[in-house]
């Protein structure tokens, strides 16, 4: 935020209020990422149920934030950085809500996976990946609160690690399924989960982009370098 206060102090309180709500929502989402990954690894259905319940609170917060943003636009006609603050809370809350949905999805699949044969080590790898995403989100929210564009940029670069973890998991799942077709059900679920965790990283990246936009007024345009061995990039698929 600008160090200068508005002449109308209620305006400052409104903007702070909506940013506080973002931080609260971010805290809930961080918590859900960790819990859903832990539930997956330890096959803890109670914890998975907790994640599913938390998603409701996350959705409610998103709605509140969007209502407040609409109210701010209508009543205060924000301009300059204030306008960017309001626009970015809408996008950031949207990104957080999507991440929340992915954790809920992971919690649902945990219930299915508990019924089928375990795939050695894979849930632990997914959990490592989720921890990395959670750490990224924590830093992204730090960057948001401190309005630190440099930190946001650093987090964006970190997303590459998550993509690499995902690519290697993808290969592992292929191998497991070829080794033993009985692994297919769990591997397919785990593959969807891994993909979702990778998507969470992308949403964290978009939060960081919003921080940069809010601070500088420009969206960062530099594409991250393409990860070698991306399974979706036909050029990088190696012949076995």
């Amino acid at each position, binding site marked *: 935020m*600008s160090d*200068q*206060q*508005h*002449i*109308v102090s209620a*305006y400052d309180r409104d903007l702070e209020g909506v940013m506080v709500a973002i931080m609260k929502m971010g805290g809930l989402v961080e918590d859900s990422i960790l819990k859903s990954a832990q539930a997956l690894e330890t096959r803890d259905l109670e914890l998975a149920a907790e994640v599913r319940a938390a998603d409701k609170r996350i959705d409610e917060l998103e709605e509140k934030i969007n209502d407040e943003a609409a109210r701010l636009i209508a009543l205060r*006609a*924000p*301009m*300059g*950085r*204030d*306008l*960017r603050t309001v626009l970015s809370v809408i996008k950031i809350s949207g990104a957080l809500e999507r991440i929340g949905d992915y954790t809920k999805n992971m919690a649902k699949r945990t219930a299915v996976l508990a019924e089928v044969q375990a795939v050695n080590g894979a849930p632990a790898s997914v959990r490592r990946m989720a921890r990395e995403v959670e750490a990224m989100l924590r830093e992204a929210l730090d960057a948001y609160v401190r309005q630190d564009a440099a930190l946001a940029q650093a987090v964006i670069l970190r997303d590459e690690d998550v993509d690499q973890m995902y690519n290697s998991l993808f290969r592992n799942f292929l191998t497991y399924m070829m080794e033993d077709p009985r692994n297919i059900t769990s591997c397919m679920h785990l593959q969807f989960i891994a993909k979702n965790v990778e998507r969470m990283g992308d949403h964290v990246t978009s939060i960081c982009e919003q921080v940069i936009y809010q601070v500088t*007024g*420009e969206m960062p345009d530099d594409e991250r370098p393409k990860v070698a061995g991306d399974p979706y990039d036909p050029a990088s698929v190696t012949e076995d």
Partner: protein
Amino acid sequence: MDDLRYMEMPVDQDTKISASNVQIYYGDNQAIKDVNVEIADKTVTAFIGPSGCGKSTFLRCLNRMNDTIDICRVEGTIKIDGDDIYDNAVDPVQLRAKVGMVFQKPNPFPKSIYDNVAYGPKVHGLAKSKADLDVIVEKALRRGAIWDEVKDRLHAPGTGLSGGQQQRLCIARAVATEPEVLLMDEPCSALDPIATAQVEELIDELRQSYSLVIVTHSMQQAARVSQRTAFFHLGNLVEFGDTSQIFTNPQDSRTESYITGRIG
């Protein structure tokens, strides 16, 4: 304009008014400090800034209205279409026909609606006959977007109209002399929101024919009607740029503070 508004008339690239190193003094007091600005043709340029920042002073020197103030002194050059308007050969009265002005408070002459509009063209000899004058008056009133409201009572007094109608009458009066530039000093501050909207719509239409410069205290209005915005602060021209850039991503921290309501 690099955005989605493909229906918008583009900003003219030709410079209409060019001011360089302009200093304006009231006695010992310097009201405008070294202002350089190029105002485009067929464009609405808004001057914004807190009270006393010099925006009205600067606007008034564009048609030498400041000449009427004895202690006011203007330095630097102001050119319209490349001609220095402070040159000794320039007749300020002719200049003001070319650079029309509309003021904050509607100020129709205490005459009929017709005479209000006909006065300028008569003085400047723009009409050869009564029929000629009728055509000029109708055209000006149409341009002022007030023709339909007054065509049946052209000989009623102009002061009998509502505030918004009076202001549009004043705009019609200003355009009757076929000016090239129209200066507006807070043209809507005495009007209600509907009349304001009508005047704003009119400003947008007038952009097809003129270069308009508008001083306004309402940043919303500047954002709505202008394509270019200049921010004045303490006599300095702090920032000048595309309106959308000024209001979404100002480059100077003083502009940012002013438009977001942090300094007055």
